[in-house]
């Protein structure tokens, strides 16, 4: 919660962490975040975890939404945005629950959106090299990087705006975007599709550099066979989002 001491308008920020079986890392991530953002509310969405993620979250005092079954990141994010809309938050900040996103970058996104520079800000792992030194740049397996570059090219083409990292999960939205996505949110790996969707709906998107830290614990949810399936699925979803008439805001 951000309260202007001079009695100005009250702005509220909700930090969203979608989590699936993150019992080992979630506590660290929440503690880390509350150091950087002591005045924001932290909401964890437990997407039907089979481990003790929920208990860990409750013991830290963060807010918790527990989905009764695993619905995928898209549905988890949507319920968080529904929550944000219902409770009247002005901004949402989304980070991964494994601690790979740096709160410092999140802060930069938040200030960009709060200043009205953009409706949605996205942290790009591929802008970071230039800004923050090579040593902290994003490194991943080649097929994955190639895939992301492919999506970046596709999204740039579809939206007519240069995009370097449409798959990034580090995002900040303002109230209008929250309202829009709370009512219609893409499923499973929703980042690429929602980037195209938001652009089609006329929101101003902004990419800012972001670094990737090693995860606190746990494994990536993306494995080889599933990733091929999801790669095509995301591709199709992005193409369809580009020809679909934007839903009224």
């Amino acid at each position: 919660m951000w309260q202007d001491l001079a009695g100005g308008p009250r702005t509220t920020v909700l930090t969203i962490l979608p989590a699936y079986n993150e019992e080992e890392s979630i506590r660290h991530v929440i503690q880390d975040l509350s150091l950087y953002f002591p005045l924001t509310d932290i909401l964890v969405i437990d997407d039907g975890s089979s481990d003790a993620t929920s208990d860990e979250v409750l013991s830290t005092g963060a807010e918790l939404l527990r989905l009764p079954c695993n619905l995928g990141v898209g549905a988890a994010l949507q319920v968080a945005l529904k929550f944000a809309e219902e409770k009247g938050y002005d901004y949402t900040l989304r980070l991964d629950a494994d601690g790979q996103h740096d709160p410092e970058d999140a802060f930069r996104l938040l200030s960009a959106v709060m200043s009205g520079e953009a409706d949605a800000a996205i942290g790009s792992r591929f802008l970071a090299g230039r800004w923050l030194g090579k040593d902290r740049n994003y490194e991943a397996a080649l097929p994955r990087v190639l895939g992301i570059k492919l999506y970046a090219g596709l999204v740039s083409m579809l939206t007519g705006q240069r995009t370097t990292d449409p798959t990034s999960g580090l995002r900040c939205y303002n109230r209008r975007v929250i309202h829009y996505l709370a009512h219609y949110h893409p499923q499973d790996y929703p980042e690429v599709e929602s980037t195209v969707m938001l652009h089609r709906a006329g929101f101003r998107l902004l990419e800012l550099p972001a670094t990737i830290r090693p995860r606190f614990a746990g494994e990536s949810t993306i494995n080889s066979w599933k990733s091929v399936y999801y790669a095509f699925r995301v591709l199709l979803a992005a193409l369809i989002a580009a020809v679909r008439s934007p839903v009224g805001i």
Partner: protein
Amino acid sequence: VSLQTVVFGIVGAALMLAVVFELVRRRRLRIGYSLLWLLIGGVALVLILFRDILGLLAQLIGVQSPTSLLFTAGIACAFLILLEHSLTLTILWRQNKSLAQSQALLEWQIRKLQDQLEASQVGNPWLEPGVTADEFLQREGIPHWALLALPPDALDSWHRGEELAIKSESLQLATAPLKGPNPWLEEVSYD
């Protein structure tokens, strides 16, 4: 076409209609989903009884053999039903998602209310609605000075004559050692 084939066809189609009808009757199949099946069974029955129709249709469309028209139509029907099922699955997924989401939001609300309730009880551990301090002391046979064992704010409101309600278990616990004669008063004998 031999008589056996006709009988076999009629029995088959009738059996299918009967099975679908029975499933609906037992409420195992929703009537909305049964319509398509009944339609297909009905069409099959009509085509068997009036076999000329199939030949006429084949001629009209320009298909050489009526049999291949029948197979094509059958596959098309199966495809339609599968597509209809995919549509239904999509609707069900969306409803399921909405339900799960609102369940999560409601659970959050319940947890908040529970926390609030607990906080209100922790904030006033001496509350027991409807029982005043005097009533309680009388009921429990505790001397008035035992109220000194109460926390200051509870004592204050008792002094102001407010209707202080006391959670009896708490007060009982706090005053248990104090029941009976005042241990701090020396017994004076005037012998």
